[in-house]
């Protein structure tokens, strides 16, 4: 009976990995589409959303079925809680990728690629990949590294604001387009927060203690 339970939990993890790769794909396509003005690719991101929602829902359903069937405890219980919450975070990140794709479809002006925006997106993707690797290897240290990376995402966000300010001052006609790009920076910042949540779930699942990402982040004093 327990071999069955282990197998089912493993297969749930593999669905999380699948969801993780769909999410990564959505995010990287959204960022590429934005910086290359590729509206077809942006539309592809919108179309991919349903599959993600479906998979996330399936992960939820199966998790609850396993809870009902096995009344799991300890690691098993934490793993199922983690799956439910990770599916939610991954689905939210895809929703954010969709929002970025919508901005691309909306943009009617061409603004030269920003030095900070694409790297910001890449950083979030890197965090996501690291979180998934941490889950695969059950590696708390790797998951904790995700937290610190979120600081860099915040730095890029500041960089985007500065760049756009300069652009608007030089060319006031680009103001509305710039505002949309500011939205994108905000979205990526939130995506980073969701990846941080993921990493927290992974730590809890593996080690059983609730780590607070804030502990691994820069303090306000260090920021001054």
């Amino acid at each position, binding site marked *: 009976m327990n071999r069955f339970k282990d197998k089912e939990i493993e297969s749930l993890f593999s669905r999380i990995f699948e969801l993780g790769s769909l999410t990564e794909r959505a995010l990287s396509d959204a960022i590429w589409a934005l910086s290359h003005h590729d509206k077809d690719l942006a539309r592809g991101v919108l179309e991919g959303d349903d599959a993600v929602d479906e998979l996330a829902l399936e992960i939820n359903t199966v998790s609850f079925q396993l809870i009902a069937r096995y*009344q799991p*405890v300890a690691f098993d219980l934490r793993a199922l809680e983690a799956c439910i919450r990770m599916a939610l975070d991954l689905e939210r990140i895809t929703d954010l990728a969709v929002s970025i794709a919508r901005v691309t479809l909306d943009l009617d002006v061409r603004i030269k690629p920003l030095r900070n925006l694409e790297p910001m997106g890449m950083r979030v993707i890197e965090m996501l990949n690291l979180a998934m690797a941490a889950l695969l290897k059950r590696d708390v240290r790797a998951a904790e590294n995700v937290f610190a990376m979120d600081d860099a995402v915040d730095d890029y966000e500041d960089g985007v604001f500065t760049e756009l300010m300069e652009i608007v001052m030089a060319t006031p006609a680009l103001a509305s387009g710039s505002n949309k790009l500011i939205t994108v920076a905000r979205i990526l910042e939130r995506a980073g927060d969701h990846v941080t949540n993921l990493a927290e779930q992974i730590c809890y699942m593996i080690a*059983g*203690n609730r780590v607070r990402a804030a502990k691994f982040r820069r303090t306000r004093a260090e920021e001054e």
Partner: protein
Amino acid sequence: MEEAKMVTKSLFMSYSRNAPPALKDVTMDIRANSVTAFIGPSGCGKSTFLRCLNRMNDFVRDARITGRVLLDGMDIYSPEVDVTNLRRRVGMVFQRPNPFPFSIRENVAYGPKLLGARDESVIDEIVENSLRSAGLWEEARDRLNDMATSLSGGQQQRLCIARAIAVEPEVLLMDEPTSALDPIATARVEELVRELKRDYTVAIVTHNMQQAARVSDTTAFFLMGELVEYGPTDVIFTTPTDQRTEDYITGRFG
């Protein structure tokens, strides 16, 4: 948190001179007005430990016990202890319901009568209160003179609990009290256990981990005579500390 009702200190127990110890160095607090569950694979010493708490192991001729067992600070193994009085204060309910071959009423009245109760109206009151506490009054009130064996298994077990309660114990020890019961009767006994802790201190052995998780405040995990882990039930079943506890409760044992 309530204070400890019973305490064991470095308790060792062997069934005979040459037998390996059935309990090794068990130190534990059993808190007042709470339910403490003992879990672990069969043969790990749960029942042995439970029986040490009211000296039921005295019946085993060659048994050796070292260490201390305290009830409200009093060493229950000290020579001046009156064992009959101890067993009144620390009552026991067994795995299989074992009603005496008397009427329902006589089963409950048995202990109080042994202790000297004579006044029938006082005995009636004890019988009613005990059956009420055991959640059996409504079912039994109209058939108090029926044989106890005419009750269903679940009812018989609640009768045994009523019988234990009738002598006003302070601690109730239960050794797998639902293992012979169907799920509905089990649920009723579990409900009862949770209610009993208001007035009593309860220690329960169960081979059913979900049952421990449902009814207890504190869980103790035994393995080969050792107390491996002991703590709040909510912690044991979500984030146990010892890998052996984890392996056992998730069913990855051995």
